[in-house]
């Protein structure tokens, strides 16, 4: 039986006198989108110099990967911080449905930033999700443009 199994020894870990642990939960999503880095306030020569190949007039695209991190107490009833299915539905509705197989340049407003850099896109995603979640729940976004280039926005951190 389980209790006789030596592997089970010492596993009756006390839950620290009833204190509810705070855990960060992260879900990852993917989407594919096109964009072009171009600031209309710059001259064509300046855009070409600053953005290089990313300024190609025909645009280019990426397979983006988005990590959404929620921080909160673990429910004593469910053992979970967040209902993953509800979070999935929210992220898909607020973000993925708008950007997957789309051109990011169509979504970026002047108030978001000068052009669709991944920094600017991550800031937009933060506002879309933070406004749809209970206050303080969203802890971090990590947006990977490629596996080698990624950008993070964190609550009380920089970049928002």
């Amino acid at each position: 039986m389980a209790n006789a199994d030596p592997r089970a020894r010492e596993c009756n870990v006390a839950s620290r006198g009833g204190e509810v642990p705070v855990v960060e939960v992260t879900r990852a999503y993917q989407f594919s989108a096109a964009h072009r880095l171009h600031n209309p306030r710059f001259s064509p020569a300046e855009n070409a110099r600053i953005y290089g190949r990313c300024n190609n007039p025909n645009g280019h695209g990426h397979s983006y990967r988005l990590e959404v991190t929620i921080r909160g107490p673990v429910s004593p009833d469910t053992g979970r911080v967040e209902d993953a299915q509800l979070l999935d539905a929210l992220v898909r509705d607020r973000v993925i449905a708008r950007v997957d197989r789309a051109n990011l340049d169509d979504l970026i407003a002047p108030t978001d930033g000068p052009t669709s850099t991944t920094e600017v896109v991550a800031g937009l995603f933060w506002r879309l999700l933070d406004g749809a979640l209970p206050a303080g729940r969203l802890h971090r976004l990590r947006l990977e443009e490629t596996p080698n280039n990624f950008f993070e926005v964190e609550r009380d951190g920089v970049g928002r």
Partner: protein
Amino acid sequence: MILLTKRVEFCAAHRYVNPRWTEEENQRVFGKCGNEHGHNYVLEVTIQGDPSPDTGMVMDLKDLKDLITEAVVDRFDHTHLNRDVPYFKEKVPTPENLAVVIWELLEPRLEHCTLHRVRLYEDGSFFVDYYGQRGSPG
């Protein structure tokens, strides 16, 4: 101060069930996760400390691996979490609760360094981070 991370893997079965709830409540809340299934868990253990002036190491990675293997992997690998781990007779074996248990198993065993973070991947698109009772840095 240096952060050092060791990654290990273990495989286990589980199902989500709250014994205080009816079958209908469990089904409504947990859905398919209430069925028996399993995962290849990936565990990242991050410790923090200063490199020894003698060895240049915060902790010998072999010692850290042995410690994690003895405290965590040997205990959970190829088990059924609900049946084989007494803690999960009353708690739902979610990654959140598993990360907390792993922290409690590792933290008292570390000497000359501090446990910084337990990160547990259930699969490539879902993981949890636990920083102990002090919460996450920043």
